[in-house]
């Protein structure tokens, strides 16, 4: 009973704070679709950075990555760090160009960006379709995580978690778009970091010498070396390495900073946040495994249950604080996906083909948010698949967008044939990923080689080769 009261109280504080922040952000005033979806290109560096980080780091971190590290050792840290290394490079190298182009050409949705880069409007529909197929499972996985966390704190109330998640997302994104999203992201991002600091500090103090003794046993089992097979490591890490280019919810964040100084701050603060969070999350997984090795905590067979198992031993206030941080991580990612998909409906479909004014387009976007959340809650209700698999599969399906977007940023609009090549590239890469996932299932499709290669590498090679054909022929 005490646990239930603490959980409900913490969750209520979290929801009330988030809603209050969203309401305050409404004062900004929304007149155009640019105001609504990219904050009128007026976000400060700190807000843009934490919003970028909170969107990137989903429930996968504190649930999936802790479990992966527990099960497979240090290799899981490498899997996540290759993402960070690649993202630091991509953001530093291409962000100024993307930010400048977004202001010059008034990009609001990433699908609109791709079609504009190739001067071909039909591309936006294809890209929008890819987003829908890839991101609905990913966003649903976040809502499933919210439901599970609430269920973990208050058994039997999975459905309540879904409802709370949907209502909060509706208010936090629907109210004033990117402004309310970024403001609530800032508060939730800080909650995530503070919870991780508290969790890791408690775990190491509580575990004490047992962690060192357990680590010695882990060394004997090879868990401190590289236990991941190369094919699995490559197949899982390649989509993540291009996450900053392929996932619209983070690409859209690059349009938001008010000036280059804010953009630079986005890159540096995101890196600090990302590295700190990754180190803390993987430290929890490694320490948890060490404590299992010496019998301080039970052995956990299901990766998604490692964090809840460890939190059973934590002081109640800390446990509910961490549980709520996982809800926050899931919410920030889901909110951003919903907003970016809504921008596609509003900008690419409604304004692109009907041509209505901005005020109506914003309302169309709000209706799209409502419909998307209804779909997500239905998929979440069915509880499909594991969080890790769904998260990685989404990035794999979006992987063909990496070469298409990068080539577009640097060589776009040179000829009509480039647009056709982009369509062929997206279609071929996406078809390979989808076919393999349908044949082998989400989990196995990523680790079942095609022609001896990691499937994601083959997708990348094929889509890159196809999009480069017109450039090579010139």
């Amino acid at each position: 009973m005490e646990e239930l009261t603490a959980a409900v109280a913490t969750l209520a504080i979290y929801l009330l704070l988030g809603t209050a922040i969203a309401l305050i952000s409404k004062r900004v005033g929304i007149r155009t679709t640019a105001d609504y979806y990219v904050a009128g290109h007026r976000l400060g560096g700190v807000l843009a950075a934490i919003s970028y980080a909170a969107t990137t780091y989903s429930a996968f971190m504190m649930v999936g990555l802790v479990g992966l590290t527990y099960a497979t050792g240090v290799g899981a840290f490498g899997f996540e760090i290759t993402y960070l290394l690649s993202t630091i490079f991509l953001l530093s190298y291409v962000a100024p160009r993307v930010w400048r182009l977004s202001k010059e050409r008034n990009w609001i949705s990433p699908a609109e960006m791709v079609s504009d880069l190739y001067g071909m409007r039909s591309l936006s529909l294809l890209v929008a379709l890819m987003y829908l197929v890839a991101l609905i499972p990913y966003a649903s996985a976040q809502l499933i995580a919210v439901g599970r966390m609430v269920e973990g704190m208050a058994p039997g109330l999975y459905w309540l978690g879904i409802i709370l998640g949907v209502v909060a997302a509706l208010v936090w994104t629907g109210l004033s778009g990117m402004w309310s999203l970024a403001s609530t992201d800032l508060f939730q991002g800080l909650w995530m970091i503070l919870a991780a600091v508290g969790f890791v500090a408690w775990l190491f103090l509580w575990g004490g010498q047992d962690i060192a003794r357990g680590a010695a046993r882990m060394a004997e089992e090879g868990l401190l070396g590289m236990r991941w097979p190369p094919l699995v490591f490559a197949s899982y890490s390649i989509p993540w390495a291009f996450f900053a280019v392929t996932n619209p919810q983070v690409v859209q964040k690059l349009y938001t900073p008010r000036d280059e100084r804010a953009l630079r701050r986005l890159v540096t603060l995101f890196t600090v946040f990302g590295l700190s969070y990754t180190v803390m999350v993987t430290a929890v997984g490694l320490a948890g495994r060490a404590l299992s090795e010496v019998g301080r905590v039970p052995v956990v067979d299901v990766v998604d249950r490692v964090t809840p198992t460890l939190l059973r031993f934590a002081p109640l206030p800390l446990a509910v604080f961490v549980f709520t941080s996982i809800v926050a991580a899931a919410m920030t990612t889901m909110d951003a996906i919903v907003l970016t998909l809504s921008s596609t409906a509003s900008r690419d479909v409604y304004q692109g083909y009907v041509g209505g004014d901005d005020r109506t387009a914003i309302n169309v976007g709000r209706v799209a948010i409502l419909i998307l959340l209804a779909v997500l809650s239905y998929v979440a209700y069915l509880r499909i698949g594991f969080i890790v698999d769904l998260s990685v599969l989404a990035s794999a399906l979006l992987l063909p967008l990496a070469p298409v977007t990068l080539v577009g940023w640097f060589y776009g609009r040179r000829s009509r044939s480039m647009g056709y090549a982009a369509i062929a590239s997206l279609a071929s890469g996406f078809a390979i990923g989808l076919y393999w996932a349908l044949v082998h299932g989400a989990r196995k499709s990523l680790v079942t080689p095609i022609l001896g290669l990691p499937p994601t590498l083959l997708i990348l090679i094929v889509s890159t080769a196809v999009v480069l054909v017109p450039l090579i022929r010139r």
Partner: protein
Amino acid sequence: MRDGLYLAWSLLVLALSYIVPFTLLRECRSLILYAFWLGLTLVHFAVTLLYLRGAEGWRS
């Protein structure tokens, strides 16, 4: 020139992050592999900070 160097450096870092763990540190029995990835990220971040200070696209 500066952009090219940063591009080459970043590709080298990414290559190292894949190659070293599967060769030199595959069987390590301490936290060296963890320290390697962490150190590589910190060095990459430091180099990136230098790059951000003077790169063409970053000068307002």
